[in-house]
């Protein structure tokens, strides 16, 4: 086969692949702008008169205009819980990764194994005792409860990822700062952190996405006050008929922030996804 034909074929294939991956997403976006009748049309309608009714139903209370609707409240909960837990997981993860990277600790590999193994636990296994514990502590259906849990689950991942990044930062930089008159903590803040920015960004993308999308813990441990969007969206079914339009609108509204965030952070994503296994 000659090179040119091969290339054309390959690029066509890329196009087909792209369509396959994006079609479901397009479909959900389109559905969010459809009227009930268009959604359940047979054959499915690709052309339709778009409507904002589904979004209005989610974000506007009938007759009361812009007020915190249940969905908006869930979305806000998601924002609060995902961002706080990400910040905390990154803060703790950075410190712990630094400590493991720079200081000699007895049984270091065992500790690291322990930390990563907590990430391997299925949420459904952990959620049973956590439910009982939160009941006893009064943390059921609270923001703090979910933030702590998500932080714990993300910190293990963060430590593992960030340690790889920390190992790549030559320790001479901190040593230089140490002899230049700074304490270990100052050296960490002023010299190590600025250089770990790329790694921290990559890690936070992953932590944020996993906290944002988490379902099982939120399903069991929240009721209303601290409920996040993922367990709520499947419940936007409406009464009398399945409100696919509203579900789609909720899905799109929920996807948008993380899609934008991902797009901004896409360069770091690649590094994060390879777990620092690819040294550059």
């Amino acid at each position, binding site marked *: 086969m000659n090179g040119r034909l091969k290339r054309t074929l390959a690029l066509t294939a890329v196009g087909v692949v792209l369509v396959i991956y994006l079609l479901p997403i397009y479909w959900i976006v389109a559905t969010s702008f459809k009227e009930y009748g268009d959604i359940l049309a047979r054959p499915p309608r690709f052309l339709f008169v778009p409507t904002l009714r589904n979004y209005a139903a989610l974000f506007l209370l009938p007759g009361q205009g812009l007020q915190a609707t249940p969905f908006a409240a869930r979305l806000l909960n998601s924002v609060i819980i995902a961002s706080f837990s990400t910040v905390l997981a990154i803060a703790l993860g950075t410190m712990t990764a630094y400590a493991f990277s720079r200081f000699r600790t007895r049984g270091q590999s065992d500790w690291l194994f322990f930390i990563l193994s907590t990430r391997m636990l299925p949420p459904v296994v952990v959620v049973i005792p956590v439910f009982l514990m939160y009941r006893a502590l009064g943390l059921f259906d609270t923001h*703090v409860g979910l933030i702590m849990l998500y932080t714990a689950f993300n910190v293990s991942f963060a430590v593992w990822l960030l340690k790889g990044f920390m190992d790549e930062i030559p320790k001479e930089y901190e040593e230089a700062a140490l002899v230049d008159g700074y304490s270990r903590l100052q050296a960490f803040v002023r010299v190590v952190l600025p250089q770990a920015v790329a790694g921290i960004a990559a890690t936070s993308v992953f932590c944020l996405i996993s906290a944002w999308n988490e379902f099982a813990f939120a399903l069991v441990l929240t009721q209303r006050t601290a409920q996040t969007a993922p367990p709520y969206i499947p419940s936007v079914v409406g009464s009398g*008929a399945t409100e696919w339009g509203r579900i789609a609108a909720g899905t799109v509204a929920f996807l948008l922030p993380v899609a934008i965030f991902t797009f901004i952070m896409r360069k770091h994503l690649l590094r994060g996804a390879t777990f620092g296994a690819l040294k550059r």
Partner: protein
Amino acid sequence: MRHCWMALAGGLVALALMAGCGRKPTQATKAQKITIAWAQWAPADYLSELGKEYTKQTGTEVMVEQIPWPQYQDKIFAAFAAGDSTYDIVVGDSQWLGRCSALAGNHYIELTDWMKKNLDASSIVPQALMNLGEYPKGTGRYWAVPAETDAVGFAYRRDLFENPKERAAFKAKYGRDLAPPKTWQELRDIAAFFTRPPELYGVALYFGKQYDTVTMGFQEVMWSFGGAYDDPKTYRVQGVLNDDAGVKALQFYVGLKPFTPPGSESFGIGKECVDAFNKGLVAMAEDFFAFFPGLADPTKNPHAKVTGFFPSPAAIGPDGKERHYISIGGQGFSVPRYSKNQETALDFIKWFCQEPVQLKWASLGGFTANKKVLASEKFLSATPYNRAFAAAFPYLRDFYAVPQYGELLTVTQTEWNAAVNGQKSAQVAMDEVAKQHTAILKKAGFIK
């Protein structure tokens, strides 16, 4: 270094603040607001409407929290298990009574004494009061007051049923007039008649695995065929549930599947059956009456004007006898022990049961259990389906309400859904249910 500490401190302060927000504020003894948990469906909207009336009269705000059916039980029990005080009234399913009574989980406060002082029990239809409020049956202990009484019924396309061509064809084929069925056997003929894939199918039935769908759909067929869950005195299941009537009933129920649309294995309460009907995909659709407002609504159902309704039919059992049983739906008001506003909640329930309020409830679309209101012409003509609903009332029956109902339900849901799917034969499925139910009831001490 200073930055580092500041960041840490800031984070902790923020956490502490949020902990403050997360905890629900403890409320004053006489609350200005009560929160009612109910499933997401039209009756909850009516209750919300009615709540505004109550607010006008008393100043107490009524908030109705609607939770979708598939998650309703899970969420409420999680809240109970957590001792969560979010809800002041729970409009709970009848099966829950046992588990939530003081005999088991002790989540509901007992209403027996309160009812004696505050309610006229004779004003309420006894089937409703018993099925939706009493546990254990026959002891006179009450844990709930009927809120919405519901039953399984059918919607049908009058335009098809009344089409002269269809009528003639039907008569030629079956030798009788095309009319809403009186028995399940008639229903099967009509369903077969209208099955013309892929445009039209005969019927949409409760086949799905969600919550209690297939159980609610099949149990009334089972009862009407002469079957039963157990021996009411000894709780014996083996040889009762899986007797000839039970197996024949399941064979019959599964036998309806060819007349249902593709994917009907997952059709559930208040969603897929309604969707299929609205789409014009089926001639008849099964659902609880409380979901029929969606079918009477022309914005959702293009056929709303030509939609008729009938209660679940009777059946002629293998023994040749005709019986008539219908799965009861609907729920009663209960007050969770964890509520901080129990007094206010009880005040609301008392108010709700008054006759004028019941009349208003009925006019909004709610299904009353008040004898007088139920018989009133005003109620019967309030909606296109109320008459059918009232006709269903004498035949209502319920699933287990013992504390182990959850486990029992998982078994029937799994096995009967498997039978519908053709994974298991009717005999195997019924045997399996009998075996597992026996084990559960034995463990719980009901079977000695």
